[in-house]
């Protein structure tokens, strides 16, 4: 088993397609998305109204790509969109996939 990073992004669902494109372009080989609701600085975001859902995007990738993604998200979206990003280490089998 090898160590990788798991980057988790929670943000507005309207960004789904953009972020999916972003993470692949920045070097990740995949991503997983789940629907979410939540609350933060920018107020309540609940899934009962189309414009205001959250998504939770997870990307397993190696260290440098994780840093690129985090950096890019912060620069591109932090100012104008509801978003948090966090990262931690995970172990995977078949590390060549990621």
């Amino acid at each position, binding site marked *: 088993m090898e160590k990788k990073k798991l980057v988790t992004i929670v943000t*507005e669902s*309207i960004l789904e397609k953009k972020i999916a494109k972003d993470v692949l372009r920045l070097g990740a080989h995949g991503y997983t998305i789940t629907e979410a609701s939540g609350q933060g600085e920018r107020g309540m975001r609940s899934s009962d*109204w189309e*414009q205001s*859902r959250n998504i939770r995007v997870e990307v397993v990738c190696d260290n440098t790509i994780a840093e690129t993604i985090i950096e890019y998200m912060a620069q591109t979206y932090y100012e104008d969109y509801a978003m948090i990003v966090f990262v931690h280490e995970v172990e995977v089998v078949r590390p060549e996939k990621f």
Partner: protein
Amino acid sequence: MIENLLDPVILFFAMGLLAGLLKSDLRLPEAIYEVISIFLLMAIGLKGGVQLAKTNIALILLPVGVTVLLGLSIPLIAYPILRKLGKFNEADSAAIAAHYGSVSAVTFAVVQTYLERLLVAYEEYVTVLLVVLEIPAIAMGILIARMKTRKHTIDYGLLFHEVFLGKSIYLLIAGLLVGWAAGPERIEPVAPLFFDLFKAALAFFLLEMGLVAARRISDLRRVGLFLIGFGILMPIVSAVIGTLFGYLAGLSLGGSVVLATLSASASYIAAPAAMRIAVPQANPTLYLTASLGITFPFNLLFGIPLYHWMGAILYSMGG
């Protein structure tokens, strides 16, 4: 007026509003909200398309042109009001202006059932005007925002998709085409769903819209008094212009009440999605609260009868 408030469609809206204000845990599942809105847009389109099949296309050109003009001018009127009088920043002003130029298909459906209940005739092709009015205002809002602020690079491909292939426009056009191609006879077997159940589905949908509006109303404190006033007065101004334009374009009384209501209505599906992408620095709380929390209920409860009354006066003078 009272008569309008006792229509089940309006009563359902009131019940949803009340549930939201009382913080009842009632809510329609999101999938249902989505499917009823798909259904309503499709049904509006179908009905319009079947009517269109009976209409001489040449007759539509003038009203369509007038409507495009309307869609371009309302944001140009709203922007300086918001910017100068309301002291909103450029992005917010442009985004809100785009919402008020664009339209609400549900408000359109309500004015149709309103006129049908009162047996006031209107041009069959008004659905075409609904489609035509939805887009220019959004484009104009984006244009204003681009000229005034210059921060983000817009992903125009994505934006184009959101606006022109976004589901509301696509479904209206698809419905129009299907209705028009199939025509009145072949459409019969699908009428029990798309026509006979239309008003009840609208009522059911308005229950949920009431809940949504109520959540927005609880944000009223955060938007300030100016925007509340704007959310009531701007529709009236737009309705006056719409009525005049309708009159000049030669529409019947019913047709110009529809056009006035379209002008008065503010978008809350197509415009927010487009603005969030094109003008992300604008604060969504402002435009959603104004559009959904103020203008939408105002139009349903009081606006439509008011625009009817305005139109009746103009037409009795003119006629």
